């Protein structure tokens, strides 16, 4: 064994985001410019850094989660994309859902990019604790 790296997942690929949404059974809405939210900033939580009230509810693409009233907005930013959503409880979205999306995205991004690095995914498992495990082999330095 050699080393272990911990990675903070960043959204860099729109196609992997689409694949991640599909993996979860969510609907990716390409080109949808607004996402459903409460509709009015009430000031009960701090405004996300770098955003103004006018930015809320606007996006470049959106995701609809079955059973949720509100939607997830996908906004193009330098170097990739970021997610925006309203976690007001009646809207039906919560941080755990966003975590699941991040997990699904990372798995799909890895499967899509591995062949470009000369590697192949030889196994994929979902553990009972919810972790997804992928094993890769191959590569030029092998």
């Amino acid at each position: 064994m050699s080393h272990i790296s911990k990675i903070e997942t960043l959204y860099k690929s729109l196609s992997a985001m689409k694949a991640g949404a599909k993996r979860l059974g969510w609907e990716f809405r390409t080109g949808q410019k607004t996402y459903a939210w409460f509709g009015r900033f009430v000031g009960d939580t701090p405004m996300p850094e770098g955003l103004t009230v006018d930015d809320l509810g606007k996006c470049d693409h959106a995701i609809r989660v079955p059973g949720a009233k509100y939607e997830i907005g996908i906004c193009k930013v330098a170097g990739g994309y970021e997610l925006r959503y309203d976690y007001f409880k009646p809207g039906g979205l919560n941080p755990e859902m966003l975590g699941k999306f991040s997990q699904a995205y990372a798995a799909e991004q890895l499967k899509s990019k591995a062949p470009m690095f000369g590697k192949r995914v030889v196994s994929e498992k979902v553990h009972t604790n919810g972790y997804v495990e992928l094993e890769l082999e191959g590569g030029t330095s092998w």
Partner: protein
Amino acid sequence: MVKKRIKVMISPTGEVTIEAIGYTGANCEEATRDIEKALGKVTEKKNKAERFAQGPKEEVKQGGGW
């Protein structure tokens, strides 16, 4: 000999842990660099003792000099 492979664990919150298994020396970094870059930003990197292995050590002969 340990087979060279890369194990990726993704938590339900989206945190990724990449483990390079069976590598030694500089190959270790090379093996995971592209994957790390494709997934996001490295927040922590921990080396394992095996990474510094230099191959089999010469046999130490004892006796005769005591």
